[in-house]
């Protein structure tokens, strides 16, 4: 067996387990433990609203959920192991497939980490383009979250209105790099393509036309009485709980904690942009409810529009986007950890490099959705079946990122 030790300090990296032990099934519910009137309900992996292939095991008493156990791993694609066999640039398409509705954010986080490892920076134009694409991606991702959340609660119309706008962002991305979902756009030290001619005008026009539609959808869904009654007092994550479970992104801010990496640990020059951090004010119930998390996302879209407008205004007219792209990526032995604010929260990569090797020794992704799933059983206990759907939707998980 090969030794799994860090090339940096020689510490063991992998805990090997005994393969002869029988599999441990104690995590799943056992029918023998059920009390009278209780039933095990398997929600997923094929279910219309578990947002991918999440499987939730519910112990129910009628409509009341006594206990819930999420089972993950149905979308496990071995990303981290793959990354140990591919050169640094080649990992980027794999990162795209983690959070597949927020690909720009993933590749950005990975590129930032490798750049930190190499000790290189990017030009002002590249930084501007990265901010624009990242924020557009955030809008697209939040639109999807908003639309599907409406659908989880039973309102179908906001979903299509949101998707129309999301399509327009995807069109912009397609024009930019040829892909609509998995872009491979952020490269180490640059981006794959410069902005095409006329792209910025089209982007501005999109922003102008997008805001009224967002107002309309917001009016249609967010303040609907039924919607508020369905979401405003369930799935409460108290601020203490949010901190204990290391939540991040909109889920954390939905619990009333003012924390955003774009302001608190800025990268790509985010400190120069004028925008507000959206924190839940919870007018309809206790802080940290599903409605709060949902509404943080809605308002964050307005802030992202602000950032994109500013970035478009101050984008340098000239500049080679491949200027800093290294011919070979062969870092010295070392490690790098870099975090960034992806649409779903704090997405970070940890890379261990061997000396002058073109292949990373270890790549670890810190995924916000995986962390958010950690408190799933806490906030679902005692709720009703319909609320489980509402809670999954409000956490805005993407299984590609949880399972990797």
């Amino acid at each position, binding site marked *: 067996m090969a030794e799994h030790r860090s090339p940096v300090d020689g510490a063991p990296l992998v805990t090997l387990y005994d393969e002869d032990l029988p599999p441990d099934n104690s995590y799943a519910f056992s029918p023998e433990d059920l009390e009278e009137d209780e*039933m095990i*309900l*398997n929600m997923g992996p094929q*279910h*219309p*609203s578990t947002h991918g292939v999440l499987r939730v095991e519910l112990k129910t008493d009628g*409509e009341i959920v006594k206990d819930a156990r999420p089972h993950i791993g149905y979308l496990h694609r071995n990303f981290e192991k793959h990354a140990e066999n591919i050169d640094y640039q080649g990992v980027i398409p794999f990162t795209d497939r983690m959070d597949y509705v927020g690909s720009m954010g993933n590749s950005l986080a990975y590129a930032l980490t490798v750049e930190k490892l190499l000790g290189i920076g990017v030009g002002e134009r590249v930084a501007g383009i990265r901010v624009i694409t990242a924020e557009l991606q955030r809008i697209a991702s939040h639109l999807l979250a908003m639309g599907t959340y*409406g*659908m*989880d*609660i*039973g*309102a*179908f*119309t906001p979903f*299509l*209105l949101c998707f*129309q706008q999301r399509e327009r962002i995807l069109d912009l991305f397609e024009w930019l790099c040829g892909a609509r979902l998995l872009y491979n756009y952020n490269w180490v030290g640059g981006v794959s393509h410069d902005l095409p001619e006329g792209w910025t005008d089209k982007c501005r026009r999109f922003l102008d036309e997008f805001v009224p539609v967002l107002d309309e959808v917001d009016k*249609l*869904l967010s303040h*609907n009485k*039924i*919607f508020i*009654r*369905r979401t405003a007092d369930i799935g409460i994550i108290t601020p203490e709980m949010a901190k204990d479970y290391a939540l991040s992104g909109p889920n954390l801010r939905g619990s009333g904690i003012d924390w955003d990496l774009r302001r608190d640990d800025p990268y790509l020059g985010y400190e120069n942009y004028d925008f507000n951090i959206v924190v839940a004010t919870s007018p309809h119930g206790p802080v940290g409810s599903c409605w709060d998390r949902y509404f943080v996302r809605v308002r964050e879209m307005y802030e992202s529009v602000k950032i994109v407008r500013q970035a478009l205004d101050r984008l340098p007219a000239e500049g080679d986007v491949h200027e800093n792209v290294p011919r070979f990526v062969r870092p010295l032995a070392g490690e790098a950890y870099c975090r960034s604010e992806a649409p779903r929260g704090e997405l970070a990569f940890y890379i261990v490099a061997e000396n002058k090797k073109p292949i990373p020794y270890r790549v670890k992704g810190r995924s916000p959705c995986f962390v958010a799933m950690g408190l799933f059983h806490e906030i679902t206990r005692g709720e*009703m*079946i*319909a*609320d489980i*759907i509402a809670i999954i939707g409000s956490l805005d998980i993407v299984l590609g990122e949880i399972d990797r």
Partner: protein
Amino acid sequence: MITRFRQIEMRLMGPLTMIPIVLCLVVLGTIAALPVVATILSELVADFVPAGLQRLTIVVLGTAGFVGILALNPIYSIWLERKVAAHVQDRLGPMRVGWHGLLQSFADGMKLLFKEDLVPRDADRLLFGAAPMLAVASAFAAFAIVPWGVREDGTVLAVANLNIGVLYFIAITSLGALSVLMAGWGSNNKYALYGGMRAAAQMVSYEIPTAILVLVVVAQVGSLSIPDIVNAQAGGILGVGDWLVFQLFPLNLIAFVLFFICGLAETNRTPFDIPEAESELVAGFHTEYSGMRFAFFFLAEYGNMLLVSMLAALLFLGGWIGPFGSNPLLFFIKGFGLVVVQMWLRWTLPRLRVDQLMGICWKYVIPISFFLLVVTTVIKGLL
């Protein structure tokens, strides 16, 4: 080799596969033409047939006409629903099959007709098979008492001019809950079971206020017969003023709105569609159904939608009475208008949770309906 085989197969099978399609087209075409023909015939024939047989003729032709309308109802209702949804959602909806997608539902129906008839292995085959039939039967049977007009000589255009028509309506619609419960239990699927239990609870609960609100009308008019109720609403300003919904303002208006809400709940339409809540229970009680059995549930659902809308039009909106005299067309416009309102609500509102749904019924709708019943009765008694 495979291509060659395909060609032979196509040549052999081509004409054969056409036979059921042609047959279906003929049957559907006949059904489509029936209501029109029947209505015209019942009007025409009534003058020529001897007096003793007049009623029978009208009943037979009227039944044929109404069954035709009901069989066709889901087809154009689904088209209408998809169009309403599409325009609410800023898109076009079906556009390819026929003019503006008019034949889309025919194509879909054809597809469902030819699908394999699947029964889950552990299902209760008797209940599983009987549930869709009972659903359709209850939806269709209720239409027997729905009159759609009255002739000048006082003959009511209806399958059965029952003098306790309203009571019959309440009794028959209760069967719908049974069919949903049977489907939920018979499928042997946990989601279907949940859907069935939810549906039973919901439909049984909302039947109570429905009955009370019907009583509000009955108490004011003093008759259980629907044509009498409609005739009592004749007259007034522009032929509109004496509609029940405008009498004793705003008591009857509230009663009408509540009746419509109960109708939504009884037909499992959004915001009360929890028995088939797609995002929670996959498809609720019809999770395991496919093909024609699934289509039967749709037939029943759209039949029920139309039934509730027509009843609301008859009881509160003056049925066939309107500004241009009494006219069956007016009644159909009112009925389908309310169907469109149901669709409009469905594509605008989110869904309630099951406890909130029951809360609304027992905490608000039932007390208010009782209040309305008492107050309207007292006022009528004093006048």
